[in-house]
């Protein structure tokens, strides 16, 4: 399933720096999502997008910015990284509601903020 790729796989940064995590999918899925995975919290939705130029907040959007100028890309930016943003970040895509609705996940980006 190379249809959705994330980069980088690992990233170490310092507090206060800006970091951008990339997500690219080749299926032309309408919906794209960013989740963070933390022990004890499971997967929490940061932002999602229903189509190009349409984005909306999830459960934990503070400190993050997204854009979706093209259907296939959905970058996530941490404008000023904080230690609490150390996490594993997963991008996902979906064709949308209906009988075949399901999420396809990227491999994840492990981010450490020092």
């Amino acid at each position: 399933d190379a249809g959705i790729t994330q980069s980088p796989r690992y990233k170490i940064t310092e507090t206060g720096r800006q970091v951008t995590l990339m997500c690219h999918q080749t299926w032309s899925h309408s919906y794209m999502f960013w989740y963070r995975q933390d022990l004890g919290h499971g997967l929490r939705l940061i932002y999602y997008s229903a189509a190009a130029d349409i984005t909306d907040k999830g459960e934990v959007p503070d400190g993050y910015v997204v854009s979706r100028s093209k259907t296939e890309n959905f970058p996530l930016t941490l404008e000023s990284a904080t230690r609490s943003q150390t996490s594993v970040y997963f991008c996902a895509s979906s064709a949308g509601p209906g009988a075949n609705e399901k999420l396809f996940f990227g491999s994840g980006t492990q981010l450490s903020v020092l």
Partner: protein
Amino acid sequence: AQRVTQPEKLLSVFKGAPVELKCNYSYSGSPELFWYVQYSRQRLQLLLRHISRESIKGFTADLNKGETSFHLKKPFAQEEDSAMYYCALSGGTGNQFYFGTGTSLTVIP
């Protein structure tokens, strides 16, 4: 408010024993329920969804609307079932997927 609860963070069973991973949900409408699995060094992937009423890798899950539960079951656990399991709920509008906190299953040989 929508919520997915997985009460067990860790679950260990012996190979060949039955396994049940619990999932309860709260949602005001008619949700769709899923189980996702993450094997070691692999990406998260769909295991099964209630609407399909299928059995994948010997796992089944029945949606019980009265108890608002969607427990995952397998009669005989195998070592390769060791993984992190997430129960998830969709509002059916395409943009609402809520996950539980996950259960890490270890099958002891």
